[in-house]
């Protein structure tokens, strides 16, 4: 065994380019378990999904190779096209609102005031709740006849709204739930950033006569921007793949007014058992997420550069 290892390492080192980092093959056995796991649960399912997307594959029927036919179906499928639109709107709103409100909340909770600790704890409570459970509670709160939301509106003289029960208001209403649940997360991340800020710039700004807004706009905001970006990234990934809240409250309805790619994908693959077409949607969805992640990473790099400043 040892001679064999030495022999291989000798040939390998002979072949290795000079200066390149070299790992002796004796480490390989330790890498193999991780490699096997990654191949088995990440790489293989992906390749298999891509393979499935080239087939007409319905549970209970024989499969036939159809090439790109499933992909050709996508742009001609009005439900899919609509679902892409819904996903974009839903994601944009449920990133923007929590990020803006969460940043604002972080600034507020950074200030010192009585009962701050208790109020902070209360503020982050929604984050701890199970999405499906709160979704069911919100469903009843949204009820146009019996829901508490319409009752509250009636107290201030606003007429009853239809919330998730009307195609025009369903996505904003779902975003309301999403915002309620995830603003605390943004707040926590940004609060951590604010707490780490140096105090000197504020002191000199005060001497220069800067107001509260100016201090926020020109000192706090640029300095916490990297944290806001991390929060936005986490939110984006969560919002794009959001499923539980939408499915539990509306199942994509009324009609298909709140059907996102994820919800439609679920229907195609696990309700219609059309695995081939479902796989094609999954592949496209995956590609979209990769692109989105790349854009976000690029933007984050840019904020880092501006933070360090030109010439760094």
């Amino acid at each position, binding site marked *: 065994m040892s001679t064999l290892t030495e022999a291989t390492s000798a040939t390998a080192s002979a072949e290795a380019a000079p200066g390149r980092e070299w790992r002796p093959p004796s480490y390989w056995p330790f890498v193999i378990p991780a490699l096997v796991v990654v191949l088995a649960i990440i790489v293989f399912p992906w390749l298999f999904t891509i393979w499935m997307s080239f087939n007409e594959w*319905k*549970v*209970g*029927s*024989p499969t036939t190779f159809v090439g790109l036919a499933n992909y050709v179906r996508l742009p001609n499928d009005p439900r899919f096209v609509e679902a892409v639109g819904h996903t974009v709107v839903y994601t944009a709103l449920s990133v923007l609102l929590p990020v803006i409100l969460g940043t604002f909340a972080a600034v507020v909770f950074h200030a010192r005031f009585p009962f701050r600790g208790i109020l902070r704890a209360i503020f982050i409570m929604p984050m701890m709740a199970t999405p499906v459970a709160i979704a069911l509670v919100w*469903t*009843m709160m949204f*009820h*146009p*006849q*019996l829901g508490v939301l319409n009752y509250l509106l009636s107290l201030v003289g606003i007429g*009853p709204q*239809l*919330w*998730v*029960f*009307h*195609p025009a208001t*369903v996505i904003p209403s779902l975003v309301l739930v999403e915002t309620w649940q995830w603003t605390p997360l943004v707040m926590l991340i940004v609060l951590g950033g604010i707490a780490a800020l140096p105090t000197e710039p504020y002191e000199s700004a005060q001497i220069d006569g800067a107001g509260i807004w100016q201090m926020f706009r020109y000192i706090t905001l640029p300095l916490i921007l990297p944290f806001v970006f991390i929060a936005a990234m986490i939110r984006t990934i969560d919002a794009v793949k959001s499923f539980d809240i939408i499915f539990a409250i*509306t*199942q*994509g*309805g*009324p*009609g*298909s007014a709140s059907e996102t790619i994820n919800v439609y994908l679920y*229907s195609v693959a*696990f*309700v*219609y*058992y059309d695995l081939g077409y479902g796989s094609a949607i999954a592949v496209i969805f995956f590609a979209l997420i990769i692109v989105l992640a790349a854009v976000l990473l690029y933007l984050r790099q840019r904020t880092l550069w501006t933070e360090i400043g030109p010439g760094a």
Partner: protein
Amino acid sequence: MKDHRISRRAVLAGSAAAGAYVLTGIPARAEVNWKKYAGTRLEVILAKGPRGDNLQKYIKEFTALTGIEVESEQIPEQQQRQKAVIELASGKPSFDVIHLSYHVQKRQFEKGGWLADMTPYMKDPTMTAPDLVESDFSAAGLQYAKNDKGQMLSLPWSVDYFILYYNKELFAKKGVAVPKTLDEMAAAAEKLTDAKDGTFGFVGRGLRNANMTLWTNFFLNYGGEFLDGKGNILTDGPEAIEATKLYQRLLTKVAPPGVAGFNWMESMASFTQGRSAMWIDGVGWAPPLEDPNASRIVGKVGYTVVPAGPKGQYSATYGDGIGIAAASKNKEAAYLLCQWAVSKAQGARLLQAGGGVPFRNSILNDEEIRKGVKMPAEWLQSVIDSAKISKLGLPVIIPVAEFRDLVGAGVTATLSGADPATELKKAHEQFRPILERSEKA
């Protein structure tokens, strides 16, 4: 508790009688050999709900009777359907006995050949109790359980008729009579609606997919048929358009705001709070309506059959059954369990608790069992009357889910003002190729 004692006594009496036959040496008829498969272990996959509860609660009695051990799990309906289909398609299901939803899965299971044929077992007097005969099941039950070759692929377990629930107090306040026809119902709903007061005449499912179970009641009563002789779908014809017009009129003019997004849960909430005067839905909701903790209208609920349409009077019927996986190695033992699940004793318990309605006429017509029913007498009467006018509420095809989604979306769209004929035509054109593909494959 009392009911259980009676049924247990009945079982004992049965066994005693069997023993007496043996002792007296009168070999007149073969008896069921319940213990023949003692020691077998069965796996059962159940959909979560009162049927599953009823089976699990009394399963010890089955084990005591047969010596067969049963492992069962209840999974929420949607997930149970998915799990079962994926496992059956793999050819190696982890279960022997399956609880299936006829209105969604019948055709799919037949086409897949996933269920074992029970016909030979039913004919074997050493395996089937004499009271379990095909003719005891209602017509809808047999239609669901048999394939086109006449083989029994499952035993019909529990039926879901759609009935009309109405609020007697609101009816009395407005002096409205219980409607006998759909036209009368629409007129009554208009009288009962008082938008200022927040009460409405009618409530029902508006949500895509779920709404089809309500819509088909109108469709059938307007003379609609789902399929023609060649298996083409017929949901864009004049009957469908008329039915959709009624649906649109009811749900936009006399139903609570937001009904387009209502499933049964939101509809029931509106009804139990006394905010809607009529509700058409499955017969199984009586227990929550009569539960003082969940309902404000206990004792005020009227139960009756779905009103007649111009072309007939039908109650849209759905149901579930219990069958044996074709790949199971314990089919005989599994059959004994299926038989026990639909037995008179188990069916009586289900009916008496309001958890389901057995497909077996001998249970519904049994005076003793009827006396033990905890729900109002009117409810039981609506069940019995619905059984007489029962008609399958969904087409027997493979892509039921796509059908419900596509036509359902069209029907929901009419609630925001879309034209019924246009929407139905659109849904029809989207659905037809899917259906054709499913039958070709």
